[in-house]
């Protein structure tokens, strides 16, 4: 059994709260990636993060797509994105260092190098900088 010291406790609680907020704002991502957009933490963007192929296989490196739009539904273009993530309950981060491969369509960013080593709840924190705005999209994935 694994403990939860990966993120410092206040941060873990904040993260849990963020997840709940995210879940309340249109549903967090499921393993099949069919959930809707979620609002970023400060409300500057809406994001949806989904795997390029399903079902998600453990131990396989694969690509995901982050879709970003603004409050009017227009694609967020030319964004810079940084990815963090891990399993809060198991106190470890992602097993790989994913890369943003580029903006494949307006507002759609491909992320390569995602891998999951365990079943359970994974949380991504996607830092987004676009124009004068920066914000964070929190996305959770439950692998059953």
């Amino acid at each position, binding site marked *: *059994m*694994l*403990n939860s*010291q*990966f993120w410092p406790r206040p941060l873990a609680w904040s993260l849990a709260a963020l997840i709940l907020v995210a879940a309340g704002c249109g549903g967090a991502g499921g393993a099949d990636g069919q959930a809707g957009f979620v609002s970023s933490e400060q409300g500057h963007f809406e994001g949806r993060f989904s795997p390029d192929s399903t079902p998600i296989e*453990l*131990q396989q*490196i694969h690509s995901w797509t982050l879709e970003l739009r603004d409050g009017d539904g227009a694609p967020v273009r030319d964004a810079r994105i940084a990815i963090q993530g891990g399993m809060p309950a*198991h*106190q*470890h*981060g*992602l*097993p*790989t*260092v*994913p*890369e943003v491969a580029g903006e494949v369509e307006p507002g759609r960013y491909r992320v*390569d*190098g995602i*891998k999951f*080593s*365990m*079943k*359970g709840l994974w949380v991504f924190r996607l830092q987004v900088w676009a124009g004068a705005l920066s914000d964070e999209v929190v996305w959770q994935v439950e692998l059953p």
Partner: protein
Amino acid sequence: MKNGRRRWLHRFVALGAVALLGGVATVVISSFHPRHPHSWNPEEVALIKSLSLTGMAAPEPDPSNRVAEDLRAVELGRKLFFDERLSANGEISCATCHDPERGFTDGRTVGKGLAEGHRNTPTLVGAGFSRWLFWDGRRDTLWAQALDPLEDPDEQGTTRTRIAQLMASSYRSHYEPLFGELPDLSDTGRFPPDAGPRGDAEAISAWESMAPTDRDAVTEVAVNAAKAIAAFEAQIVPGTTRLDQYADALGSSAEGVGPPGILTELEAEGLRIFIGQGACTDCHSGPLLTNGDFHSIGLPPIPGERFDVGRIDGAPEVAAAEFGCSSEHGDVEPSRCEDIRFLKTSGFELVGAFKVPSLRNVARTAPYMHRGQLATLDDVVAHYDDPPEAIIGHTDLLPLELSGREAAALAAFLGVLDAQPQGLEIAAHSAASTDRVTR
């Protein structure tokens, strides 16, 4: 009207109390009447079946090894695996530490070749499935791993030119159809008998005095020898265990009731802990009973020894290694070596983290952990049951709080994971035959 309301209120409260008592009674009764050891709910059935070898594909051929599937390479690799001439003293082969009779391990706390090493010898069973090699994952292909002990001064301690010369003198007829013509090594001025980058000072000096093109030619021969060894090693795969039989039969039985006569009640209880309270399948998942990743379980430092930091050193080393998937010796476009491309080299959770070993054949690979710290499976269960605080780094473990019977059940279940490895007959044949070459 007031009385009517009160009556309803009383009835409501009474109903609530009855419901509450009923719930409590259910919990109490169920806690005193545990489920039948062989009864599983659908989620448990799915989890148990996910551990079965049945339906698991063979190891995908290593794309960085162009002879990985060539049976001629398997045959050459088999001979090399048992060839004690591939050592400085002519007495140590790969099989010295990876003994087929001991589950391809050596039964020692740490490996011993020319000198005593620092880590426990891992099994080779299922090595062809491994994404990372060595306890710290400092190599990413089986062939790169196989070459390392040959040159390691504490293990076989031979030199690169000596490997190439042995291929020329004893294995030419096996080598050349696979890899093409061997270089002419007869000029001992150009090709000193003992020259290599990891030998003693004399061997290193001899190596550095060689022409770069000659060094490259020798290195290519040594790499090809290692690719043949890897082709053989990838043939050694786990055999069908009682867990596999149980999991496979579970699918055809009614309502998730386990088949009789395969697992004892104690072993079935252990299985329940393995997939449930013990959370063992968090890491020991899938048919190989490993997620192939790196985790710290807070093993304490050994007094008088430098703390082994594991993956935090292994990750940068694999990225910089002379041999590996994305190196010039890998038979694949480096961009296809995704494990290296997206390699994680930092993060506090890598400190003291080691590769999660497969649990197949675990009963025959004692002692356990990267340093052989734990002598028996009972010791292993005790560590997970009451894990110490990590002295350095962190531990992924939380106490399991097992009863004595539960701990015994979990240890008993680990014994279920035993089977004669497939591919062993190849090895046994070799050990018994005249192919076992000595100087």
